[in-house]
């Protein structure tokens, strides 16, 4: 297999480019999108690379269509991705819910910019945390990953595909304009170095007849791909294990929705990822995600120099959320600070997790700029 970019070496590239290259190394062969700042460079890179690796890149008429197309492609057997920003992500929510309901592995990249509405197209924000987790309608669960560097944007994209395939679920890669447009040194591995997980396929006719069942007891049914003779019916309506609509049966609905949510809940340890920095003896903790974590690392160093025992918990997965871990942290420290580029979204989750065991304070910043380390330090030392 020939790649249209250098592999097995480092390259100096921006976040959007890193996501595109990672997707291709991660096995993505179908991209459908609609241009939007600051995610367009992902599409442009995919447009350049996809035909060369015998994949598809297509510009759809809107974001609803892009999301729909990748779900269709996934049922036809392809690993598929789309990328957008806040306003486009809103349009995708309808079909994102369809992907949850039909347990379709797809990857959606949301490069956050300032909102609501068209807001600040070229500036970074973290205002879509709630949208990523709760944007679609109904009871549901999906996976949300959040990188803080260009290298992480690359690594988490590959992980996003693997988690999508492993758990038959949509995965949102939630990044922002800062990471998307920043250039950093990124190691692009050889294909052989990349762990690739493929979806479980039915092993026999019996499994194929239960595309929404639980034949392996792990909550993740094997996925019968179209065109292989299984004659699978896929519907966004409440359906039984065989995929037959059962829209007024409370028991069927409850069983289906609970399994979809629980297949992620019971695998929290595999899905949830975080980095702890100077937390062992910390008396003050900073909990952050994405680009802000980089200022937070520096803030912790400065605080330590000032004699404040500070530490950082950087969340790489924001959903499923590890409420227990936050409670444990809250039991250890006196206070938790949550710096984020919005008026309080991650804050609510952290506060719920802390469960009153420590005070939780929001350090909000909006307008397009990342917190400086000193802005965090000053809030902590008062």
């Amino acid at each position, binding site marked *: 297999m020939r790649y249209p970019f250098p592999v097995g070496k480092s390259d100096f590239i921006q976040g959007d480019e890193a996501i595109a290259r990672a997707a291709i190394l991660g096995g993505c062969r179908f991209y459908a999108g609609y241009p939007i700042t600051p995610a367009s460079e992902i599409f442009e890179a995919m447009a350049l690379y996809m035909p060369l690796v015998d994949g598809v890149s297509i510009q759809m008429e809107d974001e609803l269509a892009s999301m729909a197309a990748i779900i269709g492609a996934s049922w036809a057997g392809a690993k598929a991705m789309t990328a957008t920003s806040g306003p486009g992500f809103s349009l995708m929510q309808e079909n994102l819910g369809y992907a949850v309901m039909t347990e379709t592995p797809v990857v959606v990249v949301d490069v956050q910019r300032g909102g609501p509405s068209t807001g600040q197209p070229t500036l970074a924000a973290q205002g879509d945390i709630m949208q990523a987790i709760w944007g679609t309608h109904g009871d549901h669960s999906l996976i949300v990953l959040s990188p803080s560097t260009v290298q992480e944007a690359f690594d988490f994209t590959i992980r996003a595909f693997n988690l999508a395939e492993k758990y038959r679920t949509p995965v949102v890669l939630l990044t922002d304009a800062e990471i998307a447009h920043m250039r950093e040194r990124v190691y692009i591995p050889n294909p052989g170095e990349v762990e690739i997980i493929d979806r479980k396929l039915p092993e026999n006719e019996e499994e194929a007849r239960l595309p929404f069942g639980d034949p392996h007891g792990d909550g993740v049914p094997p996925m019968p791909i179209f065109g292989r003779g299984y*004659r699978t019916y896929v519907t966004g309506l409440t359906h039984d294990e065989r995929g037959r609509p059962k829209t007024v049966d409370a028991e069927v609905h409850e069983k289906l929705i609970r399994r979809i949510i629980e297949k992620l809940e019971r695998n929290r340890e595999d899905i949830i990822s975080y980095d702890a920095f100077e937390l062992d003896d910390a008396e003050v903790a900073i909990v952050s995600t994405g680009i802000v974590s980089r200022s937070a690392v520096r803030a912790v160093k400065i605080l330590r120099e000032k004699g404040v025992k500070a530490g950082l918990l950087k969340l790489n997965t924001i959903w499923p959320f590890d409420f227990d871990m936050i409670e444990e942290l809250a039991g250890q420290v006196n206070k938790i600070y949550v710096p984020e580029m919005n008026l309080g979204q991650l804050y609510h989750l952290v506060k719920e997790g802390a469960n009153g065991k420590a005070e939780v304070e929001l350090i909000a910043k909006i307008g397009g700029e990342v917190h400086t380390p000193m802005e965090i330090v000053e809030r902590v030392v008062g």
Partner: protein
Amino acid sequence: MYLKSAYEIRDKYLRKDMLPTIFCPGCGIGSALQYTLRAIDDLGLNQDEIVWVSGIGCSSRVPGFVNFDGLHTTHGRALAFATGIKLANPDLKIIAFMGDGDAAAIGGNHLIHAIRRNLDITVILINNFTYGMTGGQVAPTALKGLRGTTAPYGQFENPFDIADLAVSAGANYVARWSVFNYLQGINSIKKALSKEGFTLVEFLSPCPISFGRRNRMKTAPELLRWYQKITVPLAKAKKMPPEELEGKIVIGEFADRDRPGLVREYEAYKKRAKKMMGWEE
């Protein structure tokens, strides 16, 4: 044409455990479905290589009743889902079963762009001038003066002519019949399924319960008689002055051409890309 018995078609292609269908007495969807299955049967197409796609509405429940791979999606988006399926696996043949509200209102944008791309797909479009599943609201195809629950005093907007739209947007094959025209219907679907690119067969289809009742046509025969009255064959329509065609619906074959389909265009594009990058001669 030799017509197999309906039982044979039913037994071969329907999921028995899904019957009965949700369709009301006098509904025309079953007829259009039967014509489609007969066309598939006559052409000897492989059941495992066809995917049925649909959006939301009565006709969109069809993929659940047929024993094929099927994707029953969100309202209006069937053709966008189909774009992904077809491009990800061009070996699959795709049939989209759509209603007029689904295809022309909420899905209007996807419809014109799928046609513009010449997406390789056959659309069977059920036009009953109404939103049947949600109880009889007016559809964008409703002729002026027709009543629906959201236009209780008679539709005041201009209707969409879907077939006309499809021809202008560039479809390779476009035909319109009422479900009364069964032989023309089957033949049109056969032609549509045999061609590359975007093909569309529209059926005027009775909805006595949600539509007919509100428009003084309580039964399917009354609706069929009305179709006979308002439809004009294409050849005859060409000779009629515009004022006489007012309130009439032209039926027949409106387009039959062989522009390259999206799959072929993309294959050529991939070759061009590799050549431009110096990967291939």
